[in-house]
């Protein structure tokens, strides 16, 4: 690429800029084509094929989709598990992290250090977080140990009990993800318009009234953003159930992404896995669209 085009005519300048722009953008374009666009197209194709990892591929039309809905013993449970996880996880996580961000307001001493502390699990490899919880949740682990030796109460075997396993996956995930939304809310709370807050205060708003009537509406765009993002990521949950419970007991905590992973890379059915991934994508789009359509009722964008 040439440096310094001296006093060219306008057309030549534009042409040279176009050429140079192509140079700037082509690595990104090539990478995106190769590693996103080709795979997306391939994935659509795969969904209509019986596509083993090695060996003959055969066109099967919509059979993969039909098989998932009618014939696959784990598909509906996986979809259900993912929904259960999201419905428990999103509200708890968003509410707790908002509460935390509110509590860590400007007058709390050492709040910088506290923020880092709450953020540690967010940046830690999820596998490490899961290992810690897995140890605590063992029948002989910390939680049952304390309960038994201090209170004489024998707790259920959390990770082997179909009812408790999902609750523990949610609890562990809330713990691990809390710091992320907390930081989003902290950022929003720091940008509250001073004048509105002052006006409300002079009008006598205080405490919870202040939070509910002033703060929450003012940061509702952030709450909306956090709910949408958290919902999307929770529909994609994988590492926590896979490592904490192995998806079990039975298939009671296996989420849809683990189902996709198993179909593709355990049972070598890439076509079926691709079809399931597209169903997940459609579900995520539908939920996100629903969230956007109800936002008008509670999200305020006036400032």
């Amino acid at each position, binding site marked *: 690429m040439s440096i310094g085009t001296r006093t060219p005519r306008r057309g030549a300048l534009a042409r040279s800029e176009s050429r140079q722009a192509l140079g700037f953008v082509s690595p990104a374009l090539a*990478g995106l084509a190769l590693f996103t666009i080709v795979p997306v197209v391939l994935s659509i194709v795969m969904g209509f094929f019986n596509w083993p990892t090695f060996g003959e591929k055969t066109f099967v039309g919509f059979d993969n989709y039909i098989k998932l809905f009618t014939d696959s013993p784990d598909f509906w449970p996986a979809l259900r598990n993912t929904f259960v996880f999201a419905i428990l996880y999103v509200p708890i996580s968003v509410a707790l992290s908002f509460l935390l961000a509110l509590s860590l307001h400007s007058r709390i001493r050492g709040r910088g250090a506290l*923020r880092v502390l709450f953020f540690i699990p967010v940046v830690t490899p999820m*596998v490490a977080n899961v290992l810690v919880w897995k140890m605590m949740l063992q029948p002989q682990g910390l939680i049952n140990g304390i309960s038994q030796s201090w209170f004489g109460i024998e707790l259920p075997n959390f990770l082997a009990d179909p009812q408790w396993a999902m609750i523990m996956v949610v609890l562990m995930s809330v713990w691990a993800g809390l710091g992320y939304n907390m930081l989003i809310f902290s950022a929003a709370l720091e940008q509250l318009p001073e004048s509105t807050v002052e006006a409300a205060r002079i009008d006598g708003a205080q405490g919870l009234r202040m939070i509910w009537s002033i703060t929450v509406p003012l940061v509702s765009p952030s709450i909306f953003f956090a709910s949408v*993002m958290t919902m999307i990521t929770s529909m994609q949950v994988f590492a926590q159930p896979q490592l904490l419970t192995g998806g079990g007991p039975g298939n009671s905590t296996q989420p849809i992404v683990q189902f996709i992973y198993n179909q593709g890379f355990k049972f070598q059915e890439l076509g079926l896995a691709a079809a399931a991934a597209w169903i997940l994508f459609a579900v995520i789009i539908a939920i996100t669209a629903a969230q956007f359509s109800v936002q008008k009722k509670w999200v305020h964008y006036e400032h």
Partner: protein
Amino acid sequence: MSTSSMTMGPGALAELDTASTPPAPRRRAKREKERISGSAPMTRGERVRLVFGHIFVYIAALIFISPLIYAFFSALKPNQEIFAMPPTLVGSEIRWSNFADVFTYGPFLTYIGNSFFVSIAGTLVVLAVSTMAGYAFGRLRWKGRDAVFVLFLATLMVPAEVLVIPMFTVMQWFGWVDTYQALIFPFAFTAFGTFLMRQFFRGIPFELEEAARVDGAGPVRSFLQIVLPLSKSAVAVLAVFTFLSFWNSYLWPLIVTVDYAAHGTLPIGLATFSGITGTRWDLQMAAAIISMIPTTILVIALQKHLVKGISMAGLGGR
């Protein structure tokens, strides 16, 4: 999200609040001014509330961090004492050697080395590609620019789960299965970095560049010498989030790595640790604690930029 779960409130709470007699308006206004300036002599009520606020936050923090504290002390115990009844925080001896044993028990050093290599290489690729493309989209004029940009943004909608299945097949075509390239490149070209850089570059005044252009600098020169140096903070934010997402990535390495002992990254190493160690919880905890150290240092070092980064980047992370 419904807000109905929290409807029990404002009316009843407002009554509670007004029950304490409010001070005269003028005094209150004065106090508010002091509060903003930070000098603020507090009323008794405020002081009490602040004390309770501290207690609440500190207790919450302690409960929150207790799993990690317990994990740390467990990493220092002899293995047979981890599940002692009743549970103890400190074992009969403090075995710092557990932290060293992690490295001799399995190829843990390889995992850490692989993670650093893949994360740093991936971050460099992302930074180079995104800043260049961001510059083309944000500051150069060319035909079809907006259409291509919309295509870029559209790819952000595709979730990783849809991509990993065919991506594995693409890796087979390239002969890249179980290689470092496969760990670095496939997720280094997402449109997110390009989008972030474009947004930032657009905010830089065009006059700065025009002056250089008049003096004869081409796009390459003004990109390297004007726009990039002015964008250090945005580049830093993108670098940190990219590094973290490579460092913590689990699903893709799990799929594309075959020989874990050679190409496994840290999350893979941790996940398979229980496989090779059986019941060595002490070493697992030591390994988990070790894996937290680099990212925790990163977060402490960049603490001030974190809030800014999150509000700027919105997403990122895992």
